C-alpha cells in the first residue's frame, strides 16, 4: 500500500502539478493572455467559450464529413443514392446555426458593454502615438514624457546577444497606481498607431484628429508589455508599450519626483550652457530621437530622409533649423519636437551643427536654450 500511495503521489504530482504548470506556464506562448484585469479575464473566458463552440461544431461537422468520405467511397462499392434536397433539413440547420450564434452573442454583448464604459477615470492619461514612440501626459499632474524603445540596435542587427525583453523594453515606462480607475485618452500625432497592452485587453487606435478612450483598473503590481498594432511606417515594430503598475505610495513618490525633475529641467533652461555641455546632451538626444531617419552618421537615407551632414540648413541656417525642429515639416516625416524641453532642442540642434564635419564647414552658430525660448515668445505673439 505504501508503495502504491508513493506511486500515486508521484503520478498525481505529474498529472496535476507538473503538466498544468508546464501547460499554463507556456500557455502565454500559444494562447491569448488571460491578463490581470477583470475585463481581460472576461474577454479570455469569452475567447475560450467561442473557441470550444467552434471546436465542437468542427468535431461534429468534420466527423460527419470524414465518415461519409470513408463510408461512401466508391472503391468499397458504394452506390450513389438519389436525393438532392430536403426542405426541413435546410430549415433545421439554419435554425440550429442561428441558435448557437445567439448563445454566443449574449455574453459577448455583456462583456462589450463593460469594456466600453467611458466614464471619467480617477487618473486620466493622454497617450499620443508619434512616429515612432509613445508620449504620455498625465492630465491631473504636470507630468509628460516620451517613451522610446531601449533595445540596443546592435541586438537588432545581431551583433550582440538579444536580451530577455528584446523589443519589449523602453527607456521610460508609463507608471500607474494599482486599484485605480485609469482612463486613457488616445490620439495620434502623425499617422495612425494603435496602443495595445494585452494584459489589460486594451487596444485602441491612436488617430490624428481624434481622441479615443479606453480604461483599465489593474489589481496587481507588475510590468506589462505591449505593442503598437497599426502599421505606422518603418519603425512600427520598434515602438513598444511598457506599463509599470505600482502600489499607491510608490506612485505618489514617483509623481513627486517627476514633478521635481520637471522643475529642475526648467531651471536648466536659464543656466549658461557651454558648447561641450550642449553637444554632449544633444548627442544623447540625437541617438534616441533622430537616428531612425537621419542615421547615426548623419547621412540619412536619401532621398526620403535627408543627410544632416553637409546640409545647407545645419551648416548655415540656424534660424531655419530651429523652425524645422519646432514646427516640423508639413507633408514630410519630419515631425515637430516642440513637446521636448528647450534644453533638449537647443542641444540637439547644436549637436547636429557641430558633429561630423559640420563643425568645420559650417558657420559655427551655437543655439542655446534661450534662443528656443525667444523663438517660442516670438511665435506665441
Amino acid at each position, binding site marked *: 500500500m505504501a508503495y502504491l500511495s508513493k506511486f500515486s503521489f508521484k503520478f498525481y504530482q505529474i498529472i496535476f502539478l507538473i503538466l498544468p504548470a508546464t501547460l499554463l506556464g507556456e500557455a502565454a506562448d500559444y494562447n491569448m493572455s488571460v491578463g490581470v484585469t477583470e475585463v481581460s479575464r472576461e474577454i479570455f473566458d469569452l475567447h475560450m467559450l467561442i473557441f470550444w463552440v467552434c471546436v465542437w461544431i468542427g468535431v461534429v461537422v468534420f466527423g460527419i464529413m470524414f465518415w461519409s468520405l470513408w463510408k461512401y467511397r466508391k472503391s468499397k462499392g458504394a452506390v450513389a443514392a438519389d436525393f438532392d434536397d430536403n426542405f426541413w433539413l*435546410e430549415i433545421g440547420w439554419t435554425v440550429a446555426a442561428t441558435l448557437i450564434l445567439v448563445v454566443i452573442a449574449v455574453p459577448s454583448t455583456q462583456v462589450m458593454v463593460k469594456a466600453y464604459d467611458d466614464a471619467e477615470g480617477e487618473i486620466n492619461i493622454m497617450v499620443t502615438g508619434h512616429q515612432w514612440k509613445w508620449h504620455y501626459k498625465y492630465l491631473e499632474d504636470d507630468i509628460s514624457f516620451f517613451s522610446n524603445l531601449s533595445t540596443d540596435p546592435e541586438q537588432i542587427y545581431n551583433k550582440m546577444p538579444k536580451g530577455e525583453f528584446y523589443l519589449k523594453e523602453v527607456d521610460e515606462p508609463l507608471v500607474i497606481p494599482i486599484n485605480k480607475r485609469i482612463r486613457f485618452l488616445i490620439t495620434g500625432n502623425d499617422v495612425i498607431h494603435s496602443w495595445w497592452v494585452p494584459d489589460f485587453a486594451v487596444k485602441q487606435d491612436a488617430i490624428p484628429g481624434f481622441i479615443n478612450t479606453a480604461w483599465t483598473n489593474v489589481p496587481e503590481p507588475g510590468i506589462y508589455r505591449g505593442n503598437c498594432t497599426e502599421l505606422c511606417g518603418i519603425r512600427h515594430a520598434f515602438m513598444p508599450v511598457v506599463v509599470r503598475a505600482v502600489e499607491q505610495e510608490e506612485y505618489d513618490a514617483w509623481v513627486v519626483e517627476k514633478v521635481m525633475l520637471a522643475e529642475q529641467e526648467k531651471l536648466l533652461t536659464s543656466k549658461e550652457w557651454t558648447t561641450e555641455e550642449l553637444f554632449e546632451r544633444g548627442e544623447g538626444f540625437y541617438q534616441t530621437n533622430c537616428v531612425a531617419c537621419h542615421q547615426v552618421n548623419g547621412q540619412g537615407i536619401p532621398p526620403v530622409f535627408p543627410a544632416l551632414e553637409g546640409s545647407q540648413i545645419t551648416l548655415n541656417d540656424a534660424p531655419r533649423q530651429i523652425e524645422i525642429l519646432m514646427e516640423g515639416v508639413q507633408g514630410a516625416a519630419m515631425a515637430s519636437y516642440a513637446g521636448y524641453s528647450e534644453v533638449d532642442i537647443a542641444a540637439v540642434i547644436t549637436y547636429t551643427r557641430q558633429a561630423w564635419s559640420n563643425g568645420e564647414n559650417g558657420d559655427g552658430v551655437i543655439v542655446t536654450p534661450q534662443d528656443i525660448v525667444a523663438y517660442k515668445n516670438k511665435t506665441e505673439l
Partner: protein
Amino acid sequence: MSTVVETHDHGHHGPAKGLTRWLYTTNHKDIGTLYLWFSCLMLFIGGSMAMVIRAELFQPGLQIVEPEFFNQMTTNHGLIMVFGVIMPAFVGLANWMLPMQIGAPDMALPRLNNLSFWLLPMAFGILISTLFMPEGGPNFGWTFYAPLSTTYAPSTVNYFIFSVHIMGISSILGSINIITTIFNMRAPGMTLMKMPLFVWSWLITAYLLIAVMPVLAGVVTMMLMDINFGTSFFNAGGGGDPVLFQHVFWFFGHPEVYIMILPAFGIASHIIETFSRKPIFGYTSMVYAMSSIAILSFVVWAHHMFTVGMPLAGELFFMYSTMLIAIPTGVKVFNWIATMYRGSITFETPMLFAIAFVALFTIGGFSGLMLAIVPADFQYHDTYFVVAHFHYVLVPGSLFGIIAGVYYWLPKWTGNMYDETLGQLHFWLTFISVNLTFFPMHFVGLAGMPRRYPDYALQFADFNMVISVGAFLFGITQLLLVFIVIKSIRAGKKAKPEVWEGAGELGLEWTLESPAPYHTFTVQPQVK
C-alpha cells in the same frame, strides 16, 4: 492550353498564328488562357515576396532586408495576391467556362474582353515598376490607410493610385461582360434556377464588383486629391477624417473578400457533385446562401475597424451582422457534406483539393466567427491571428478552389489527362505545407505577435521558424503545379468528352469534345 492551336480543323477560322493571336484575340478561351497564365506569373512574383518576408522572419533580428523594404514586400505581396492572382484567375476560369456551361459560342462582348485582360499587365507593370524607383514602392499595407498612404507616403503612391484605377476599370469591364453574357446567351431552356452554380456564383460576384470597384476608385481618387491638390479628405490637420478612409475602403474591402471566395464556392460545388456521383444537395439553398452572403457583405464592413473607436451601438451592430454572415456560410458547408453523404466517392486530385477546401475554409470561417466577437477582437485585431484567418480563407479557400478548378477542367481544355500521380503528390505537399505555414500563425497571434512586423520578441521565435519552413515548402511545391499543367498541355492520356465518369449529365461543358473546339457552341444546345 496552347493545344487549342491544333483544333483549327474544328472551325473554319482557327486562331491566328504567333504573338498577334494573343494580342488581338477576342476568343474567350484564348483570353481565359491569358488570364490564367497571368495569374500564375503573379502568383510566383507575389509568392517570392512572401518568401522574402518569411526569410526575414525566420529568426528574430534584422538579417536580410531593412524594415522599409520589408513594408514594401508585405504591401505588394498583398496587393498582387488579391488583385493579381485570385481575381484574374477567377476571371480566367469564367472566360473559359461560362460560355461552355451556358451553351454559348463565346462571351457577349469579345473586344471588351480583350481590353479587360490587356489592362492588367499595364496595371501591374506600373505597380511593380515602383519597386525599382529610388523612393521605393508602396509601403503602407495593402489596406493603405491614410494618412500613412497620403501625407506620409513616398511619391510613388501616385503610380499606385493610377495602377489601382486601371485594375478597377479592368474588373468593371470584365463584370459587365460576364453579366451580359449570362443574361443574354444562355441556351434555350436554361432558366436562372437551372444555371450551373459556378455561373450563379459569377453572376453574383460580377454584381458585387460593379457595386464596389467604383468605391475603391473613389477612395484612391480622394487620396490623389489630398496628395496633389491640397484637399483634406483624410487629413485631420485640414479638418479631414482619417477614419473616413477606413469606412470607404472597407465598404469596398469587405465585399471584395467575398468576390474572392464566391467563385470558389461554385467550383467546389461542381467538383463535389462530380466525384460524389450525386447531384449537389440543396441547389436552391446554395443559390440563396450565395445571394444572402453577397447582400450581407455590404453591411459588415466596419468589423475590420472595431478598434477605431466607434460608438457602442456601431460596434454591436457590426458584430451581429458579421455573425449573421456565418449562417449562410455554414449552410453551404452543410450542403456540400450532404452531397457527399451516401454518394459514391472517388478521390482524384480535384476532389482532394475540394475536400481540403471545405475543411480548411471552414477553419477560416471559425476564426472569422471568433474575430466577429468585438471584445475578443480587441485582443485579436492586427495580430497574426488575423493573418491566420484570412490566409485560411484565401489560400486553402480561394486558391485551392482555383487549383481544384484547374485540375477539374484541364482535360477539357487540353484534351489530355494530367498526370494523376503527380497531381496527388502536389496535393499532399500543398496540404501539409499550407497547414504548417498558417496553423501556427493562430498561436503566435494569440500570444501577441502583431502583424506587419519585420522583427519580433524572442517568445515567438520557435513558431516563426516553423511557419517559414512551411512557407518555403509551399512555395517550391507550386512549381510542381506548373510542371503538371505544362505536361498535360503537351501530352497525356486522351480525355473523353465527359472526362469524369458520369459528368456528362452534370453540365453542358462535358458534352463538348475534349479539347473543346475553338468556337464553343456554334449550334445552341437545348436544355430540358
